[in-house]
């Protein structure tokens, strides 16, 4: 707000209005209310970004963006790759965000899946995902899955 105050002192009224309106209408990572109010949101989706570290956590846990952190850009790309790979491999099975945690050289990937396919198939996919991602990212990968009976189990609220 300090910044906006100084800004309004220098700028004419019209621009001032524009800046404020941008500030108010941030849309990123906020879900739009549906007309019928029946859009399901998970707990993670329900919190807008400023609630991270207050009521919800990060989706990627690593130290790349800290001071002297290594490979920040590559890590971001890798994370995106992992997310796309998993949502594609586990087609229509992932019911939550994919949380990627990096510790030393290990990447732990956590998610909630739906119990739609048989357990043996789930195990097959676990083995496949872990192994192929290991080959790709060249480090040990561990999947940490929880299962729910259906998607409604992870709905936090409807908007």
């Amino acid at each position, binding site marked *: 707000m300090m910044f906006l105050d100084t800004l309004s002192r220098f700028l004419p009224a019209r621009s001032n209005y524009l800046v404020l309106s941008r500030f108010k209408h941030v849309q990123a990572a906020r879900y739009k209310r549906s007309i019928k109010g029946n859009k399901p949101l998970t707990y993670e989706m329900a919190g807008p970004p400023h609630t991270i570290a207050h009521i919800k956590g990060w989706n990627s*846990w690593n130290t790349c963006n800290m001071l002297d952190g290594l490979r920040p850009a590559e890590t971001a790309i890798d994370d995106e790759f992992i997310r796309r790979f998993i949502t594609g491999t586990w087609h229509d099975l992932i019911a939550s965000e994919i949380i990627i945690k990096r510790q030393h*050289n290990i990447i732990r990937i956590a998610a909630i899946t739906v*119990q739609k396919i048989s*357990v*043996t*198939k*789930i*195990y*097959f*996919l*676990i*083995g*496949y*995902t*872990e*192994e*192929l991602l*290991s*080959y*790709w*990212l*060249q*480090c040990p990968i561990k*999947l940490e*899955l*929880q*299962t729910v009976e259906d998607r409604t189990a992870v709905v936090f609220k409807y908007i």
Partner: protein
Amino acid sequence: MLTNYRTAFLRKSNETIQLYRLSTNTLEKSSSSGIKIDIPKYKNRTSTDILKAISSTIQRDPTAAHFKYHDDPYLIPVSNFQKRAYALSQESGRKAAHWIRNQHPELFNHKVAFPPIEKFYPKVVYDENCELDENELKIIIEKATVSDAITVYNLLKKKDIEISSDTQQSLLELVCFYNNQDDLEEDWIEERWYTQANKDREEYRNTWKSNGFAMTLFSTIKSPNSHHYSIIIQGMAKYNQFEEAYKLYKEANEKGFILSTNAYNSAIKTAVYVKEGADHKWLHIQEILTQMCNSGVPMNLSTLNSILNVLTTMAINSESKKYALKTIAEAKQFDIEPCLASYYYLLQIFCADRKNKSTILVDILNLIEEKSLIIKDLADTNFFTAAMENCRYHLQNVDVALRVHSVLLKGKNYNLIGDSYRESVYYRHFFAILCQNESVEFLMKYYNDLVPHIYIPEPTITELIVKTLNVAAAVELYPKIWSDILMFDQADREPIITELIDGMAQNLFPSFEQSIKEKLSLLSGTIYDAIEERKETGKIKMSWTGTMLGNLIKVCLFGDNINKATEIIVKLHKNQNEIIGIPDSQTIASFVDYCIENNYFNELLKCIEYSLEVNYLELDDFISKILTNMTLSAMQRAHLSKLVGTEHYVEIENKIEFVSS
């Protein structure tokens, strides 16, 4: 989670700092008083020592599934079949990924990891376009990939590149050790764990590839020396090509070569097939041993094991025990300590005779109890299973069995259990002996500990456990055992169900508290429902027997569960064709009595209807009992007479009047 760890870590580090401060203080004081500090010698640690130390603080948690399974209720296996299927599914997924990488090796050549990790890169394919030299071959031999080594060797030959005799020898060693084919890769742990059961069947079957690469390589060597002979003899003996091995051994002997100790050991093993009869076998062994002695080749552990191995094949001969002891004594002179494999052979030699019981296992236990064991021979993994089997069939002694078990759990000895097949055989024997000899409390202590995550009882063992519960009248454990039976998919095993229901019906004591009575009757209701449900979906094909249902009725009545009892009676009546036999008349009598006592007329009618159909001898007694002991309305009387048949009804009524007058 993470923050928890962090605080714990901080706390820990604070403590260490404090400790450090304290120690520095004391050090200063002590040094001022002139005491010399002994700095311990620096110990060389390898890179994994810390990991090993950490892992030694963790024990197997019996309440959780094995860590190879995912920690989620939906994903945890509950039966032997599921355990196997899940573990192998995961591995097959890994294999799929492996296949994809090998199909598209060009996609996986990027190098992210530093230092580079070989395991993550696709396999190198060797063909004629590769720049190859002897060093490459050496590296491949070091990696022990047999098929690659053979291709590279052939390529080098084609290009007329000279190969030194050392490399040639190590290649021969490699192909002989693996019998010309790639071994199952180290990565496929589950496949190893679950498939080795078949290997037992291959014992003594000749699997040596007689026209394989090893033989060609051996024949291309112009003047094979003693090393080459030693290697090929060992390879042949390892894969049970005994005759050829013995032939080569003789050939080497004629040429006056001194073979390696292990080659002599392999030659000893050939006695199993080459010679027949105990005397000839022993002569064969003696011959080779004198040969070794003359050549100045010392014996080693595997010499001892090979001799004992041959002796097991002639264990019926009374001399073999003497020979075995002699061999052990001889080995002791050379400071050779027998390993588990030797003990395994000893067990086989000494306990072959079922009549003369030998307590050699106790002596063996006395020796190994204090030691931490490591694997020294492939046959080491047979020991624990054999020892437990010995306890069950030979010694029939539960104390010895417990001692064997405590040895198994000590240190890292559990690694010597072998594979899943041997493990389950081990526990099968263990539970069988616990069932035979110990109290229910004792049995349940182990049962709660080991079942279901470490061991899931086979149907025969479940039956034994149920029998033990029956004998001990441990009625409070029936619900638990029933839910376990359901969980292990054993509800379709007729002997188990019969045993369980029989046991329940026999252990009904009027002195039980009402709550236990109710629980039992509820349980019999659930058993009936669960089996019915599974029969409908086709999961269980077992058919009911009259005795089973009769027993269920008894238990239901015992806990005042009249509704279920009537349901079963109706079931008996309706499905007479499918049910084998009929419940005994006593059960029906007790049902009638119960109804009379509590004035359940409708239920009573259903029972009488069924008894009429079956035509029990005591039918008249039942009806007269009803008429005398129950106050019936006119309507009810009419109902009953219609059911029984008016003439017969009047007959019975008259009889009663006659008796009472």
